[in-house]
Structures are given as C-alpha cells and as structure tokens.
C-alpha cells in the first residue's frame, strides 16, 4: 500500500496525543495527582498532537471541504467512528482542562469517560486498517494491539519528557517494551502471511482454477494507474529489512538503553527526552513500513503471485 506521509504523520501524532490523554485520565482516576502546571502542559501537547494529526489526515482527501460528512456513518464505518470518537475525546479532555483552569475542579467521571473515548479512538483508528480483508497483513487483531501499544508508549514517552519523574520513566520503559512485543509479534505474523493467506491466488482472482498455472500476460495498459500506485506499491526486500532494523533500533533499542541509563544513573531529563525523540522517529519509520509492506490482493491482477 502507498505510504502517504499525511497518513503516517496522522497516525503517529494523533496516536501519541490520545496516548497522553489516556494516561492523564488514568492518573486523575487513580487520584495520584490533581492537575498541575506540568500536567496542563502535557494535556495541551496531547490536544495539539491529536488535532494536528486529524488535520493532516484530511490532507490526503480528494475533497476535504466535505470532511464533516464523515461523521454520518458511524453504524458501519470505522473511519466515521474514528472521526466522531476523536472529536468527542478532544472535547471531553478540553472540558477537563477548562473546568480545572476556571474553577479548580477535577471531576473523576469526566476523566473516566475521556479515558474510554480515547482508547476507543485508538482502536477505531487501528480498525480502519485491521478490517481490510484484501490486505492480509493488516487483517488481524494484532494490528489493534500494535496501535494501542504505540499510542500508549509514545504518549508516556512525551509525558516522561515533560515531567521525568521516576514513576513516569518506569511507565515509559514498560510501555516501550510492551509496544515492541506487540510489534514483533505482528512482524512475525506478517512474515508468514502471504498474499494468499485467505486462499486468494491468480487462479481464484480470475476463476481459472482448472488450469495448472495462470499468470499475467498483459496488463490492461502500459503505464501506471490509481490501483497500481495506491495498492500495488513495491518495496525492495532488502530495503524493507534495513528499514525494519532502523525502526527497531531508533524506535526500540536506543530508547530502551536511554531509559535504562536514566533509571540507573538518575540523570533522567536528558536521557528521557532523547529516548522520546528517537521513539517517535522509530514509530514513524515503523508506520511507513506498515503501509509499504502491506500487499493488497488486487496485485494478483497485476502480475504478483
């Protein structure tokens, strides 16, 4: 699938934004602290990231001026649900901040509903991809776990950078490990999930199942078309392997070491900030690969087997 930069930025940034909001709501619910100037800064960062991500996601639309129509089909469409949930989460969270800033009150039920909405938003984003049966590598519950994992890990990475307490660093460390466990499982499944995972082959695609072999002889036309640039995106195997290493190194291993050093040396601030930046870059690369490595069965009509 074509890795559109607006969508990569959207899923990474708004993922982190909703991760931050989720964690802050958890903190409020656990009564660990009421809002402080620090947490307000975090909250604003969360809102800005989520908002920027959502805005960027409209950039790849053919007719962004009608984007408001996308809230209408929540009964069947995950994209519609995602839009509604994202807006509701942001409103709910902004409400928590506004109430606190104006009257100094924090209502736990508001944090509760915001937490639920925020997690549902992340799940809805993931389901946009996980529901696509013609892309076998996306079509798994692991996709949802990966999105939840990276949202919470990047969210906590940002929180820990703003407020590098020991408690936050531990959580960031745990979140990082968990997110990468999900992703490694996803990669492992992806490596054994071929285009024919659900039984689709060039033979079933054309119905020429009674033959010993069927292969594309001529494409419909000599040049590219929308289907080919959008869904038959080709990435070299070597290229992909190297990018996976970069994603794992920048997004996982180096932040892991940084956070480990932060915990051991007590020199938290610098290390935590560095780990957050690297983690975000690594997740961006991971997201690029999420698209680039995903094969769509329509490729069977264009000579893939």
């Amino acid at each position, binding site marked *: 699938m074509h890795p559109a930069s607006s969508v990569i930025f959207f899923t990474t940034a708004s993922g982190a934004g909703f991760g931050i909001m989720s964690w802050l709501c958890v903190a409020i619910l656990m009564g660990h602290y009421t809002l402080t100037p620090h947490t307000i800064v975090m909250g604003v960062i969360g809102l800005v990231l989520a908002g920027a991500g959502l805005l960027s996601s409209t950039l790849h639309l053919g007719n962004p001026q009608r984007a408001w129509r996308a809230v209408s089909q929540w009964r069947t469409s995950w994209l519609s649900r995602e839009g509604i949930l994202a807006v509701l989460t942001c409103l709910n969270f902004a409400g928590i901040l506004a109430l606190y800033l104006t009257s100094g009150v924090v209502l736990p039920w508001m944090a509760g509903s915001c937490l639920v909405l925020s997690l549902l938003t992340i799940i809805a984003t993931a389901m946009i991809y996980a529901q696509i049966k013609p892309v076998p590598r996306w079509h798994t519950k692991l996709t949802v776990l990966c999105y939840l994992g990276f949202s919470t890990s990047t969210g906590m990475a940002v929180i820990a950078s703003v407020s590098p307490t020991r408690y936050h660093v531990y959580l960031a460390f745990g979140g990082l490990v968990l997110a990468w466990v999900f992703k490694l499982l996803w990669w492992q499944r992806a490596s054994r999930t071929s285009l024919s995972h659900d039984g689709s082959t060039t033979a079933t695609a054309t119905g020429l199942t009674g033959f010993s072999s069927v292969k594309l002889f001529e494409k419909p036309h000599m040049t590219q*078309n929308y289907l080919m640039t959008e869904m038959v995106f080709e990435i070299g195997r070597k290229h992909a392997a190297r990018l996976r290493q970069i994603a794992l190194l920048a997004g996982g291993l180096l932040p892991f070491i940084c956070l480990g050093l932060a915990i051991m040396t007590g020199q938290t601030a610098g290390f935590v900030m560095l780990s957050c930046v690297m983690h975000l870059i690594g997740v961006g690369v991971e997201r690029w690969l999420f698209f680039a490595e995903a094969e769509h069965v329509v490729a069977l009509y264009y000579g893939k087997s």
Partner: protein
Amino acid sequence: MTMLPPEPTKKLGLVIDLDICVGCHACAVNCKEWNTGGYGNALSDQDAYGSEPSGAWLNRIHSFEAVPMDAQGTPQPSDARIVHFPKSCLHCDDAPCVTVCPTGASYKRAEDGIVLVNEDHCIGCGLCAWSCAYGAREMDRASGVMKKCTLCVDRIYNENLPVEDREPACVKSCPANARHFGDLADPSSDVSVMVASRGGFDLMPEQGNKPVNKYLPPRTKTSRCASQTRDDEVPDLVSLAQNNQSTGILGWLDRTLDAIS
C-alpha cells in the same frame, strides 16, 4: 447510507464469457466514452498526451496465460492459451466498499442491487477502493471523488434511448457478444440460464463479498488442436482442400465442373 439493504429481489449485473472475449478493449473504450459524459464528474485523464498517461477507467481488460493440465494433472505447456479478462465492479451483495464509507456516499440500491457513489458526498478518502478485493474503484484525480462502474444506470432506465439501447455501454459495444446484462436473481432470466448451463462462477469467493456479476469459463480445446495430435497428425491441408464434401446446389455444380474439366 452505508448500511447494506436487505438482499435485493432484483440483482442486475453482468455475465462475462471468458471463452468468447477477444481482448479488443472495445467495451473499456465505450465505457469510458459513455461515462465521461454521463453519471457524475467526467472521467479525467492525467498527462493524456505525455509519456506517462494515466486516468480513471471503470472497466479494464487484463490478459492471462493459462496452462492446462491433463487428467493426471500434468501441465500441458504447449497448449497454453491466452484468456482475456475484462473486469469492472461486480456489484457485490456483501459489498465491503459500501459499509466502510464514512460519508454515506457509497451505497447499494435496494431496488436492483446496483452499487453507486454519490459524488456530491464523496470526500475522496479512498477507503472503499482499499476494501475492494477486485480493484473495481478508481479515484478520479481531477475531481477527487471515487469512480466505479454504475452498471450504466443512466442507460438501462433511460427512457430517452430506444429500447434496444437500454443496456450497458460495454454490453452494447462488445463485437464478440462476450458480455451479457440481466437480472441474476431471476433464475429464468437469460443470464441466469447461461450461468447455470455453462458453470458460471464468482471471482475470489474466499473474500466473502458475494459478487453478483458472474464469469463463464473458457471451454476446453478440442483434441484436434491439442499438441499431442498436432505433432504426429498434422492435417493434410492439400487433401482437406481437395476433399469434395460440398452438398446442395453448389456441390452439384462443383462436381459437374470437375467432371467436365
């Protein structure tokens, strides 16, 4: 409204005969021609006269090489054949392209099962094209909306056209009569009879979309054309030509002239 309607009692669709299609692309060209002036925005092209032309088409013809096998499953590469394969929207019963649409632009009609896009509501997110296993939807790069086969809804019910023209442009233009249009929910319709008698099939049934359009398989070649006879039994064309089997008045004339000369 992107909820699928209850199963329509009428399912209009196409039946495409892979035995007959000659791969001339006439249906694709006529489809483009009709639909660029018909339903919704024009079907745009990009770099149309340049070196990398591309554009939105609702019907495309792929060609495949198929190698048959004998009863034991041994491939018969010298009998390989070309199968021309036209592909347009299959107007699926369980159309995922409809349910994923966030705006309600994509819908399936309850009255005849046709799957359409309301271009005034489409935001061009492309999700429906991702969800279609068959690659039947293409984004129009100029208008930023999704394009797909309309089953020529603006022809088949068009009372301004003579009755004989009220069928899809691609069906009308096929010079080989490889495309047929009708109601596939009615077991007595021509198309349903054709599907039943020729063993018509669904594309990628494993994807679970329940397509309405059906394809008819290429017929097996007769043994005269098969390679094992071709090598040792090359038909003697000269004696075939001299073989005087003609009957009727021409045959009599032929024999008489032969006798005279």
